[in-house]
């Protein structure tokens, strides 16, 4: 039998519903992953808790110190938001690369993170942006730094009954440039074989901070701070870039799937970390003029 659908209007009602049904309930955000699992009978929950009307999960807020994104904000809105494009282009680029426009119109940032699909773009960008996930659950609110969130493919640090309510992204240091590169091996609509997000803060041509996140080639998005540090205090020369690219390729355990073997992905990490850094060094990727939406 198909599940019932509850429509709480507040966060506390949503949490109460999840608590009441425990294992038999699933939160329903955009539904692009969940409806698929449901329809193909891979899951059979008794209750779906639809988050669409939960006020606390909506909205984008921009402040001096950062950007706060409600968990139910759609990926297309992030891809198209002029402020996100200006201030966090890596996130806009990553969101723009997800699936197709219909998926992006439906899928939410919170749902995307909670699903923890290893072959997804936004988590990689958020990893490089050092996002903080605001989570509410039966034991109250807590914050989870994104680096501690992904525990494996489709596995997160969320406890039973917990919901992501918002994603907070501290603004990168002044003088930062960033990008997100997606490498596909099959059709132009494919998921990434490798995704690379790079955020670099420059001061007078010297790299003050460098963050690289790599995903889709491995079970969860990865950063290697010890490799990132190779760049700090130096200009991004070819040699530095190559050392970082090499370091990421060496240190990340890659996986095999339809989009490429583990061995190939190691080399593709090297290539795309390098290309991402070259792009950042040489300037932002620009967006098309037609903002739409």
């Amino acid at each position, binding site marked *: 039998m198909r599940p019932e659908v509850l429509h709480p209007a507040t966060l506390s009602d949503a949490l109460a519903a999840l608590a009441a049904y425990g294992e038999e309930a699933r939160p329903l955000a955009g539904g692009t992953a969940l409806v698929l699992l449901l329809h193909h009978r891979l899951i059979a929950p008794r209750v779906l808790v639809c988050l669409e009307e939960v006020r606390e999960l909506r909205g984008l807020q921009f402040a001096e110190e950062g950007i706060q994104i409600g968990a139910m904000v759609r990926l297309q809105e992030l891809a198209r938001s002029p402020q996100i494009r200006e201030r966090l282009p890596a996130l806009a680029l990553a969101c723009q690369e997800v699936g197709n426009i219909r998926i992006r119109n439906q899928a939410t940032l919170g749902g995307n993170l909670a699903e923890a699909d290893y072959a997804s773009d936004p988590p990689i960008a958020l990893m490089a942006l050092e996002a903080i996930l605001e989570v509410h659950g039966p034991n109250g609110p807590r914050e989870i730094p994104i680096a501690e969130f992904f525990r494996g493919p489709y596995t997160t640090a969320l406890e039973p009954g917990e919901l992501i309510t918002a994603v907070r992204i501290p603004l990168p240091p002044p003088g930062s440039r960033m990008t997100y590169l997606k*490498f596909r*091996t*099959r059709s*132009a609509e494919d998921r990434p074989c490798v995704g690379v997000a790079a955020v670099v803060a420059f001061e007078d041509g010297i790299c003050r901070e460098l963050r690289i996140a790599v995903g889709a080639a491995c079970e969860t998005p990865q950063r290697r701070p010890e490799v990132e540090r190779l760049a700090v205090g130096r200009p991004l020369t070819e040699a530095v870039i190559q050392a970082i690219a090499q370091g990421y390729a060496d240190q990340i355990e890659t996986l095999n799937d339809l989009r490429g*073997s583990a061995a190939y992905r190691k080399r593709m990490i090297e290539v795309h970390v390098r290309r991402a850094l070259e792009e950042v060094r040489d300037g932002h990727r620009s967006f098309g003029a037609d903002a739409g939406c």
Partner: protein
Amino acid sequence: MAIGRSVPMRDAEARVRGTVAYLADLRLPGMLTAKVVRSPFPHARIRRLDPRPALRIPGVVAILTAEDFNRPGAPRLFYGVDRKDQPVVARDRVRYVGEPVAAIVAETAEAAEEAAQAIEVEYEELPAVFDPLAATKPEAPQVHEDCPGNVFLHTRLRHGDLEAGFAAADLIVEETYTTPPACHVALEPHGVIAQWADGRLTVWSATQAPFVVQETLAELFGLPREAVRVIVPPLGGGYGGKGYVRLEPLAAALAWKVGGRPVRLILERSEEFVTLTRHAACIRIRTGVRRDGTLTARQVEVYWGAGAYADITPRLLRGAGLVRVVGPYRIPAVHVDAYGVYTNLPPAGPFRGTMSFEGAWAYESHMDTIAHELGMDPLELRRRNLLRPGDRFCTGEVIEEAFFLECLEAAVRCVGWDQPYEKGEGGRRRGRGLAVMMKSTLPRSRSECRLVLWADGVLELHTGTVEMGQGAHTALAQIAAAETGIPLERVQVIGPDTDRVPYDATTSASRSTSMMGTAIREAALRLKEEMRRRAAPLLEADPEELILQGTGVMVRGRPEVWIAWEDVLRRHGLEALEAHGVFETQGGLDPETGQGIASPHWHQGAGACEVEVDIETGKVRILRYCAAAYAGRVINPALATLQNEGNVVFGLGQALMEQILFDQGQPVNANMSDYQIPSLRDLPEVLESVLLESPEGSIHGLGEMTLPPVAPAIANAIFDAVGVRIRDLPITPEKIWRALHGE
């Protein structure tokens, strides 16, 4: 003139309004839903099958298992267009993952689904084999008890003295090419509705071959042909996947078991990947050539992986499987050995470009290897050897209409083959490639039609040709209009419905415009003859004195003595005048020598492209692609160009990304995210289409011609760019990268 005009598809408005009723849109009163229970094992004995728990589920109406076929009056269990080796549902043994072991009919899809899970089946797994070459080894597991060695058919083509040919060669090149199973991925899945009423079986099916379905079902149920009616709605894509017989026996058997209510079976997307695939092929090709580029001998050995059931493969192996792997070249000595091999994979069958795609992949890549070894321009090598009018092909046939070189030259013109070329330096290199192909159409097949002229001036064309998006009904109506002189707006197309239209073999092998078109011309001639005969007494003249003028008849030399067709009918008190048209092709090859008539005419196409290879990733960008086909007389240029372009898009998928992946027989990418087809962002940056016309030429189908050259043209361009030869499809970035970096 109705021919040569780009008129929109007949039901264009319904198509853009979304009101075309495909099979899934048909609703019949009391219609039930069916669901197939499939084997999870590639090869297993069925130890126990207990449908009882499923029968207890509310809403379940009937469950079909092999047991039912033992009942008196039951249909036969086994069918197949050639070898009757395929059971409607498995008995005792399953031979591929996805093979039907039972089927459920229920009031709702939910009940059918639940019942499918409740059926208890116990399997005992048996050793299985998946690769066609491995299947021919002595130690390989046997897929069918009656076929030791798994080769169910070996056909041969023998032309000239092979030994002498190789002896005369300065260079002998030998290579092996492979193609994997692929899926048609018509966006509309397979679907059937079947209903028994008053001893008659009616089947609505998304099929490309209504008369083959009729014949097969009549035979299975021991009925005369007329007791089976097959109605075909417009298809949401076919590409060969809906050719011959697919779900119809199962749906008909379910309807038989239910006895009266219509039963609908529509596949889920994942089931499409285990219903019919492209052949997994392994092609060994060896060619002797003189230093000046003259080909002296060619030997081809092809292992066609047919999957668990022979399906159409034996029929293909007696023609297509031999002649479509040689290439359009003058070669004094040619030997081909084609093996039809059973494996524990889903059955393989017709697939847009059937066996030409695989053949051209091998022989056109191989031609470039030869050119490279000779240090000769690939175009020049082909110029020296391509068949010209009057040349004899390896089947002994003389090729009269030969435009291979013209096709190729038209294609290469678009990529500026004669111009100096800059391949680039650094990380991105460019290259150009070309390929040409020849494809047989079906010999020994028949198309019939009926033209009915009504007194109100409407001309009905009754045809079994299936409209699956290729615009066949539009092109055929144009031919009917042109041949009768009746304005196109007054031509209506009826069918396909086996009760209402005369026989047609199948809508496949790009045969319809040509064959059905010829049948229409035949019918039109008869209609006009009949009109003259009827008009003669009315005009008080001899029929011989009469000529047709517009949609009327007049006496030669006396334009004032004229009568409109409608008036001829009215004055004779006729509601309508009918004429029948038949066109049949002869021929066929001797299976031992491959000599005879392989094809009534030859499909000819070429492609040329320019690619850019990213050396660091192996990723290929198609900068420019030009597809050229010999089109003979073009009926509808816009629709013909669409076919041509569609071939290229389809071919890009097959070349660069498509492959059903199996892990121990289990498909692991049976969905449209894991199995990808091209989107518009995968189009070449420039895509050109050339149709070579010859006003006096015959009418040619265009559904496939420019598809087979796509993969070898790209592979040849990659070789030109970076010196890497890929021999196993699809050409993935990783394969190129591995070849470049020696890993």
